[in-house]
């Protein structure tokens, strides 16, 4: 039988010290039974001799030293998996909360996962069409990529995440698609918005939700993405599905981690976050990917809010160091009612070059985005100059680039949260916007491509748009 201990010696914050414990193992989970018979869940953070340090997911409120019992479960956290998890809603620690039947498991998987052997990875190179021009045209997403959204309080990251979940498709294929959604400390409304959106399109049947809301126990959030990613690994690598994982909001996750670290009196790193935050985040984010000889894939979109819109804050900073690019939202575009307000210049998809070009999107794609970037960057500078000196003071060239930047924002970036553009539409729109420049100014585009795709030449050639 499970060993039971009534030897809690101290409680501090989310942590509990238990004495005289025999056979405790690092990282294993425990059940905690309070005096009133209610059960909480914990994980062993450290064992020293027969003293055990336990982190309590539901918090320690109401725990008393005399009555509380601890049972060692002798295993790490596990998720019961089977195809029936699709369409289900779980708590942040993997307990069904939708009144549905218990999951009859095919297997129980350790939620900590194991690192993917780098040798066994298959390079992500299949273009995912999201229907969003700033992503497809300029920062293409590929299957198996991890591409976060850096947002700020009050910016429409939930809408973009929902748009991605709704529109993302791999061109020309009818493979099985699933969405895994992990909510960490977000509001009921934000979670419900997402659920409703998936319900409307019927995608909910192919989704798995792990929900920890703002008023749920904070420490639970440390477990939530691990449960979600375990479900994703099961669906992708055991069942061959194309899985999109949305983790929202990673800032709340990191705060929970900081709380534990502070309670353990660890030497704090930047802004009080623990020194191992990078490693901890990496063990989550690196679970995205593709592996050799397996049809399935995990594509990951972590969402995080940057405190004070600061990209150098540890959470976005360390995320950016691990993920394969970032989509950054801009408050100033949002104010101009440009949606989705993607800040094009600092956004980046590191895997873009692998997923585009002839046979994938179109041969002109790479040159085109380079040119659009360069022109928009120049146009932004002109916009800034105009705000300082006034538009009248701009040189002819600056004025032209400024006009381009304005048009680019209004037509290319701005498309709303429901318009679903094909990649051809996105590319052609890029050419159309560039047509205000002399061909010789388009230094980043191969001359042959200009001759083939520039609208004026296309009409001459009689080719369709």
């Amino acid at each position, binding site marked *: 039988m499970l060993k039971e201990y009534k030897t809690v010696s101290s409680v501090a914050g989310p942590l509990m010290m238990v004495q005289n414990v025999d*056979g*405790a*193992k*690092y*990282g*294993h989970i425990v059940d905690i039974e309070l005096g009133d018979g209610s059960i909480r869940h914990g994980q062993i*953070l*450290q*064992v*020293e*001799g*027969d003293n055990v340090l336990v982190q309590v997911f539901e918090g320690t409120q109401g725990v008393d030293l005399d009555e509380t019992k601890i049972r060692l479960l002798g295993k*790490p956290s596990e998720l019961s998996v089977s195809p029936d998890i699709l369409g289900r809603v779980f708590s942040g620690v993997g307990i069904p909360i939708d009144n549905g039947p218990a999951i009859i498991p095919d297997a129980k998987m350790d939620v900590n*996962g*194991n*690192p*993917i*052997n*780098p*040798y*066994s*990875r*298959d*390079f*992500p190179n299949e273009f995912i069409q999201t229907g969003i021009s700033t992503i497809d045209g300029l920062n293409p997403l590929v299957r198996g990529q991890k591409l976060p959204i850096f947002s700020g309080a009050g910016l429409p990251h939930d809408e973009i995440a929902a748009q991605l979940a709704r529109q993302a498709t791999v061109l020309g294929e009818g493979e099985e698609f699933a969405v895994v959604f992990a909510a960490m400390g977000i509001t009921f409304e934000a979670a419900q918005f997402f659920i409703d959106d998936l319900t409307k399109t019927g995608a909910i049947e192919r989704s798995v939700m792990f929900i920890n809301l703002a008023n749920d126990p904070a420490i639970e959030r440390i477990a939530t993405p691990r449960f979600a990613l375990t479900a994703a690994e099961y669906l992708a*690598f055991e069942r061959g599905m194309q899985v999109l994982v949305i983790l929202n909001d990673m800032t709340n996750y990191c705060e929970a981690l900081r709380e534990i670290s502070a309670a353990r009196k660890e*030497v704090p790193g*930047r802004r009080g976050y623990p*020194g*191992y935050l*990078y*490693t901890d985040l*990496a063990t989550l984010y*690196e*679970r995205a*990917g593709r592996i*050799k000889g397996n049809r399935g894939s995990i594509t990951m979109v972590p969402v995080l809010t940057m405190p004070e819109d600061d990209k*150098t804050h*540890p959470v976005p*900073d*360390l995320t*950016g*160091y*691990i993920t394969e*690019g*970032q989509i950054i939202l801009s408050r100033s575009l949002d104010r101009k009612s440009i949606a989705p307000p993607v800040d094009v*210049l*600092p956004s*980046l998809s*590191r*895997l873009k*070059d692998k997923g585009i070009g002839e046979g994938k999107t179109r041969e002109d794609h*790479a040159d085109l985005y*380079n040119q659009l*970037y*360069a022109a928009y*960057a120049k146009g932004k500078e002109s916009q800034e100059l105009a705000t300082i000196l006034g538009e009248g003071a701009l*040189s002819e060239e600056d004025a032209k680039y400024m006009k381009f930047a304005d048009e680019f924002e209004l037509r290319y970036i701005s498309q709303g949260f429901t318009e679903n553009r094909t990649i051809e539409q996105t590319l052609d729109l890029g050419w159309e916007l560039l047509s205000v420049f002399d061909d*010789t100014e388009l*230094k980043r585009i191969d001359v042959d491509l200009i001759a083939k795709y520039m609208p004026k030449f296309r009409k001459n050639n009689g080719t369709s748009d």
Partner: protein
Amino acid sequence: MSELGQGKIVKVAGPVVVAQGMSGAKMYDVVRVGEANLIGEIVELNNDMASIQVYEGTVGVGPGEPVINTGAPLSVELGPGLISSIYDGIQRPLDKLYALEGSFIQRGNALPGLDRDKKWPFKATVENGAKVTAGDIIGEVQESSLLLHKIMVPLGVEGTIEGIKDGEYTVDTPIATIKADDGSVSEIKMMQKCPVRSQRASKQRLAPDKAMVTGQRVIDTFFPIGVGGTACVPGPFGTGKTVVQHQLAKWIDADVVVYIGCGERGNEMTDVLTEFPELKDPKSGKPLMERVVLIANTSDMPVAAREASVYTGITIAEYFRDMGYRVALMADSTSRWAEAMREISTRLEEMPAEEGYPAYLGARIASFYERAGRVACLGAPDREGALSIIGAVSPPGGDLSDSVVQATLHVVKVFWSLQSRLAQQRHFPAIDWLTSYSFYKQYLQECFEDKVMAAEMDGMIKEAMSLLEKEADLLEIVRLVGAEAISKADQISLAVAKSIREDYLHQNAFHEVDTYTSLEKQYTMLKVILHLYKKGLEAVEAGIEPADIFKIDAMEAIARAKYIPEAEMSKIADIANQIDSQIAKL
């Protein structure tokens, strides 16, 4: 083994385990931990208590479980079979682990670094009866089409060679014996083991005497790295550290490249694994992978093995240096190594210095880079080897006051400063030409076969750099008082500086041709741009409007010069004539 005693775990805190009853243990001994038989290394000793950093995940490990000391320090296996391998931080071959365990890394499997079954064709280069000492080359194995592996007498062995002969052998088959003067006999195999935490011996340190050509224009032209030199690439995320490292791994003028993916992305290692075999060495036309050893301890792999990975890598690199080769080592990223150090130190409850890093951070970084250098190798025949180190640094928030950046700048001789401003403008490589530096500039000349060309290039480099500096000043003036304040001659300077930036320094790593530029092509390109400068100045003096000069077709030809293949280089030189004739028509 019995005298070493078997210890018992008393504490588990993440990657650090404490065991008691470890009498006889030495620092850096490798141990096997717990019932799962995990691999670990002793990093602190206190009476019979040993603190152990464990190279595999410790979930499920608890007090009372056994710890067995192997009595040997953390070592790598050196011999034929290293080239084209991919190892984790403690030299476990990841391809073999994959065959054994599948896609996800399991625990407790200690696979040897070198294949025990593969036979290599060995050719002796000394005769029986020859007197040899440590470091002497006694034979060769053609390991790959690009690498002739030299078999050397291990350290601490000398005497008379006996029983050596050509043949096909596995790495642990005896290929000869060496009989010492005292009559003791050592068996020699192609494989030797070498502890990783200290430098491999050499005869003498030598100063750099040459630059290493990398084919990257901003690096070779302005901030070259010396043979046996050290360089660092700090920058915020997304500024191009990894692309710089990959570009160097591909194109640097080295015989062997050791690439350490230290706590970074898994997909970047896959990228190397899939892309390198397709790339051809610009000189020999052979696949580039045939000179590369990969160490991949990605960010999700155990943090203690990440700490070890740089030592594993550099010891392998030194081994090739000792054969008389030019070796380049890239570590991406040294910050992740430092963070691993910090995490272990925290768990050891050591007193932290700045930013929680241990007080010995600076010393560790310095002694790592000190293992670079050009050396006279140990043993006969006389030969020189070199090891250059290029480390990426990932400062939090891009802040260069970070401890790891500062400790690194203290010791390295080249600083490639990546700026997010440039990266955002998609000016790649985003190496800032004004704040970067190199102490090896004078050695670039040695890389030219043609000495006249070398001297001319030297002058052009100085001229180009002063134009870039002038540009910064002029732009400041424009910002303050407007473009009208600039003289016509200065407008030419501005335009030429822009051309240097956009047409010369800007280099697309992913363009088939642009990815690599030979020194001669660099010379030719720069010469054309500076010719435009000279002719432009003459023209404004003769009363021609700068705006008209900027419209000549040759301007666009300059912009596209980088895409002209090496074989058609005369087309670039020809642009100078176009400049002359087109300006003459104005």
